[in-house]
């Protein structure tokens, strides 16, 4: 059989193989999508708790969305407050953490000073300790200052140690050619000008990645928030903590629909940011490491 015939008339064997390939893909896709479909279905379902006997709900309603957006004085459901709390923490963390990460990354990547290597080694060692081991002590420290169960405390917890997460940004800065900086020095620029006017504009992918990552941290985090916000007062919680309480043993049968609706609502902005971030992330690490 010549090649031309092969293209024009696909053999039977080939059609079978193509079909099998796509059926397998469809099965995998279904496996991945069914729980998500169940989330959406439950968000629109008339059932208050998880429907135990039917995959598809008997009837559809928007009640869960209305309840979660306009909760009134509900003691469990304070979704708009949680959303605002997380948004505030996210914004402040975003500002402080991104600044810290980029500052440390520039110092470690582009400058040479005596303490550089020792500091980098200390950072590696510190990163090997489980993150919330130190947070247990931080909890007691913040408690002394009355900062537990407050958003300030949470911002401090998320952003204070963020300088340690500089490695990815440093990897990116490492790939920016040194000749650019040298040219700027010859023109009489100081380090600050180089950092602000040359490196940062070139580092857009990694800045976007760092900023979105810092913004998303409080939306994704469960453990730090549950350590710091332990009063049990619903209005003080973040989205993750609040939604977690909705599906505990006591509340599950009354709030599962609201939980799903809340999950759908937070997914929308987060997924948009995530798609943007992932694009830059892949660009950042592959761009950096293929060359390095």
């Amino acid at each position: 059989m010549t090649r031309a015939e092969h293209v024009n008339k696909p053999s039977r064997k080939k059609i079978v193989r193509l079909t099998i390939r796509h059926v397998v893909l469809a099965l995998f896709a279904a496996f991945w999508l069914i729980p998500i479909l169940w989330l959406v279905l439950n968000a629109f379902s008339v059932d208050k708790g998880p429907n135990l006997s039917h995959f598809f709900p008997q009837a559809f309603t928007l009640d869960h969305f209305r309840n979660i957006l306009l909760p009134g004085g509900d003691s469990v459901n304070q979704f708009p407050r949680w959303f605002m709390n997380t948004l505030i923490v996210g914004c402040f963390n975003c500002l402080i953490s991104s600044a810290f990460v980029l500052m440390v990354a520039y110092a470690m990547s582009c400058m040479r000073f005596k303490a550089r290597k020792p500091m980098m080694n200390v950072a590696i060692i510190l990163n090997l300790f489980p993150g919330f081991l130190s947070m247990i002590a931080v909890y007691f420290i913040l408690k002394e200052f009355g900062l537990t169960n407050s958003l300030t405390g949470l911002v401090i917890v998320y952003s204070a140690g963020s300088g340690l997460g500089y490695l990815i940004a440093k990897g990116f800065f490492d790939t920016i050619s040194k000749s650019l900086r040298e040219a700027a020095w010859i023109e009489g620029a100081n380090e600050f000008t180089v950092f602000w006017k040359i490196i940062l504009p070139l580092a857009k992918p990694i800045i976007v990645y760092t900023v979105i990552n810092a913004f998303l941290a409080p939306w994704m985090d469960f453990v730090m928030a549950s350590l710091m916000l332990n009063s049990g007062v619903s209005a003080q919680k973040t989205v993750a903590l609040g939604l977690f309480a909705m599906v505990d043993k006591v509340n599950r049968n009354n709030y599962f629909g609201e939980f799903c609706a809340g999950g759908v609502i937070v997914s929308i902005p987060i997924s948009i940011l995530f798609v943007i971030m992932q694009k830059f992330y892949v660009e950042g690490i592959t761009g950096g490491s293929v060359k390095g």
Partner: protein
Amino acid sequence: MSMMQQTKARGRSSGLTRAFSSVGEFFAGTAEAFRKGDIWTRLSALVCGAGFMARGQIVKGILKTLVEALVIYLIPSFIVPNLSKFGTLGTVVAQKSFDPVTRKNVWNDYDNSFLILLFSVMSLVLIIVAVVLWMKNMRAAYQVQRTQERGKHVNSFRDDLDDLLGKRFHITLLSLPTLGVVLLIIIPLIVMILIAFTNYDHDHLPPNALFTWVGLKNFRNLFNMSPESSFGYSFAKVLSWTLVWAVMATFTCFILGILMAMFINNRNTMGKRFWRTCFMVTMAVPQFVSLLLVRNFFANQGIVNTLCKNIGLTDWLFNIGAIPTANYIPFLTNPAWARPMILLINIWVGIPYQMLIATGILMNIPADLTEAARIDGANAWQSFWHITMPYIMFVMGPSLVNSVVGNINNFNVIYLLSHDVYVTQNQLMANANASEVDLLITWLFGLTQDRQNYKMASVIGILVFVVCAIITLVAFNRMIKGDKEESFQ
């Protein structure tokens, strides 16, 4: 090979010697400043700003003296009172007594062991920093003296500020992040490590009770492998599951993610974008939402169990003896089922991320490599093993080690799937607040939250560090050959 190891060993020892010699140099420099300095430089040992003010650096001198005054003020008011109690961690127990004058209950002036420990650590850090700064200050004062003696320009305050944006810009950049790390990572970490050597637990909770040093007792408790020791028994079990989990979770996601990416990117696949989007949809939902959802999905009275019951799967499994009751499949409540289920759910959560990264890398593989292999007669399998995998390993290798460490500390997946759902039937483990699906990290968390057993939690925390450190050291020593960071600038 042995040559290389020798060179490496030499390189390392010289690095260590360098570190020591630079510390030695530091001391020697301070001594030299003292020996050769004039009266003003020597006076700087007492009044830190003296040497600078004598050379016209007034503002700098005043600032340095103010910092010194602050440290001296802290010695009687903070450092001494706390450090003096460091040996006992406090002796005065809190007591409430009735004051007949004010007719109120008043507390005595009691000791809080935790605060004593915390403030002592802060004092020690402060002392070390102060001594180092003092020595640096002596050297700097001598430097200025020399500069003036040689008739060179002595920096004005303005010049110093300019330096902070120029050749000393790293100080500007690093001081705030470092302060954050020292105050909220390093000091708390030292405190938690020290707590491993105390009896800080439910019965010794400050402020109502004191705790004190107990030496290595907690470590002996954890390593006690006698059959009646609940902590020793649980530790062996939890540690082995943690390691199995970390390796399995990393490699299943890694391999399957790459295979999936290749399967979708294959030129025979139609509608690549569509399939990719199908998997990306999972990523749109935050992890804690999807995990909490899945745990209800697979609950004992959940929807999956209803469906399995309806199609007769539950009865069949019961008949072959795979499940203990005919009513439901204990997906997340029986050790034999829960562990594989958690791994499976982790694959479900993890593959889309891995696929995304792998897709990016696969697209970067130089096409001529695979093309050349095809012309040389390599089949798909050979080209996968000899070109694709080495290439991916080259790019992803270091991050693979990080994800093993990350999975050892993977709190979310285990905690959100098993908390309130999985109850251990093993009495010894239950005594130690552990369960068959716990990782070291979730065990640690549970001990602090449910039992307030901080002493054992911090012992476990130290061991998590040891495990992670060993894995990282071994892996990086094998993988990374030399420091390549500057070769591409």
